[in-house]
């Protein structure tokens, strides 16, 4: 989830209005091309053998904060990290990425120049410390200074990493919230649908989409965004991969409210209270596209579904109001494929804990995803049909 409240009182607004600068107070993403990045000294990618499954993973990395309880989590007060903390967390994140060794990685909540993450360029870091060589960055929250809780400069977004060249990248602006005052809305995150075109070979191209929808709205914004995503991907003509943090439960979810990581009484702010989920909004994705984890595998009971939970605000070393330690307690992250692409049967997996296999196959995971982010990575073997 994203901390997104930006409060700016009249006093602050007047003070800021007296100053002008070449850099705007905030930048709103416009539909169109986004920057692409290449690891310095990138080697030619391994030859792609048509029909060979590609290892793909989607992961909300919580801007390299691991399990530090930030203020919007309502279980702590942290606002910033030191450079040492960010470096250590990114070393752990990239260690897991190297273990899983994906050909394509979709990340959400990645930062490139934010005060809270010590201004680390996480695109550059992931390119440098993994075998992924190309990236596209889709900025969604770009503000010169957010006067809320001392957040300060912010540049957060989603990214697509690939072992294969990214020959084009663009994003589409999503619907914004309408239930905020004008000043808060201006400093708020602006969601986008990110798309990158991969050149797997001279003759084989594929499209990859990364998304991260709204978490805290009470005006149907997330539902509008899910509709936009469905429409955009449905129109894709290339074989595609769609993944990310949908902030929505699967249509067959048994447990739909009162999660163990929610406070029983509001403490930090009602802005971060969890609105009711609308699992039925995910049904079209499962119906029209190939999910990495089909609903049949997801199961019909909470015990069965627990194996595929991907999110917990509380970490394993924290306890809720009732003294229960944090563990994955709901599914919000997904991978889908379509237009001539699907997943190898039973390859879809949620990387929840150390010691588990990845997609039912070796290697056994050494890294502990439960301690690396508030979201678990979702894995699959993506088959792009010739």
């Amino acid at each position: 989830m994203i901390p997104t409240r930006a409060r700016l009182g009249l006093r602050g607004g007047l003070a800021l209005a007296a100053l002008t600068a070449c850099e705007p107070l905030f930048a709103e993403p416009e539909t169109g091309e986004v920057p692409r990045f290449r690891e310095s000294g990138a080697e030619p990618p391994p030859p792609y053998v048509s029909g060979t499954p590609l290892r793909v993973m989607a992961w909300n990395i919580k801007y390299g904060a691991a399990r530090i309880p930030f203020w919007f989590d309502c279980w702590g007060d942290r606002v910033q990290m030191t450079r040492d903390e960010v470096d250590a967390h990114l070393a752990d994140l990239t260690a897991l990425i190297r273990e899983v060794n994906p050909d394509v990685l979709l990340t959400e909540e990645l930062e490139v120049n934010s005060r809270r993450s010590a201004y680390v360029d996480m695109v550059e870091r992931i390119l440098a410390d993994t075998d992924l060589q190309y990236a596209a960055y889709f900025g969604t929250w770009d503000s010169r200074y957010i006067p809320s809780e001392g957040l300060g400069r912010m540049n957060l977004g989603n990214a697509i990493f690939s072992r294969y060249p990214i020959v084009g990248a663009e994003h589409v602006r999503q619907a914004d919230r309408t239930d905020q005052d004008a000043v808060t809305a201006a400093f708020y995150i602006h969601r986008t649908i990110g798309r990158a075109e991969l050149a797997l070979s001279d003759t084989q191209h594929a499209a990859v989409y990364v998304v991260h929808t709204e978490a805290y709205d009470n005006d149907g914004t997330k539902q509008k965004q899910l509709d936009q995503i469905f429409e955009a991907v449905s129109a894709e003509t290339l074989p595609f991969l769609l993944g990310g943090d949908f902030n929505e439960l699967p249509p067959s979810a048994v447990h739909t409210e009162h999660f163990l990581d929610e406070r029983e009484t509001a403490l930090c702010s009602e802005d971060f209270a969890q609105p009711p989920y609308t699992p039925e909004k995910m049904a079209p994705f499962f119906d029209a596209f190939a999910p990495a984890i089909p609903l049949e595998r997801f199961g019909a009971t909470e015990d069965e579904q627990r194996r595929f939970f991907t999110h917990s605000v509380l970490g394993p070393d924290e306890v809720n109001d009732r003294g229960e330690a944090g563990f994955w307690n709901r599914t919000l992250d997904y991978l889908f494929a379509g237009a001539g692409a699907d997943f190898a049967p039973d390859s879809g997996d949620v990387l929840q804990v150390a010691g588990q296999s990845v997609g039912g196959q070796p290697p056994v995971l050494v890294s502990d995803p439960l301690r690396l982010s508030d979201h678990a990575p979702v894995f699959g073997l993506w088959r792009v049909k010739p």
Partner: protein
Amino acid sequence: MTRTTSAALALLCAAAPATAQTLAPRDTAHVGPAGSGGVGIFNPLTYTPTAGVELSTYPLAALIAPNGAMRAHLCTAEDAPLTLSWELGASLPSAAFLSGPPLGLAGYVTPSCKVHAAEPDRAPNDCQRPGAVFAPSLGLAASWGRDDVLTAKVDYTYGFLLSGERGTPLDTWAPLNLLFAPVFDTWRAHLGVRYDHALLPGWRVAAEAHLYRVARGPVPGRDPHTFVAHLGTDLRTTTHTRLTFGAMYWNSDQRAVEVEPDADGYSRFVHVRSHDFGPTLDFLWRWGD
């Protein structure tokens, strides 16, 4: 003529633009005569209780950051229009961060720490609100000239941490970075030059250039230098008042980045310096000169 009419005429005469005497230059090393003083909305409240010693404070800033200074005449050259003065000041700039609105900034530029307040044992070390800082300063000014005055100033401010942690720099607009540098950056050094020129008896123009340096701060360090330029003008409005306005420019490292594409269409983020522009406007009143 009634007493009321006389009083009104006297007030009117006092308020009418006086053209005989040249408007005095500002921000020089000169200290006014005993009993003189002045105040502006954004300029400091000053008072000279005894010859050669001036006391001052910024009233608006004092609401959130108590401050005060004493400036004392050092010497005046006998055979040249040269005057030297020194200044000793002190402030509690972190007071603004220790409380919430209406007088504090906690919850806006510093954390509100609501979890810590409600459950002190849950995350005892997670409240990142900066601690209390006491910031004394020492400065020296030299002015050359009487009507057209060239003034050079140098000053240094150090923030002594009295409690808690220092906090990390705001990395925001240059004026705020400089104001709170003793809190977050440990110290601030300043070298400034101002030339104040009388165009007409009631009209002055001034140009200023300033160089600031702060401590480098936490990793990754930013460029600690800030350059400031100001052009302004003063217009006499009454015998004792003037209107001043102008424009100011700041050039500093606020950790901004830009995307720089290469010939192949791939990009990288490059750091760039930031430019801020702002108007200056104030209404000043002086007495006792």
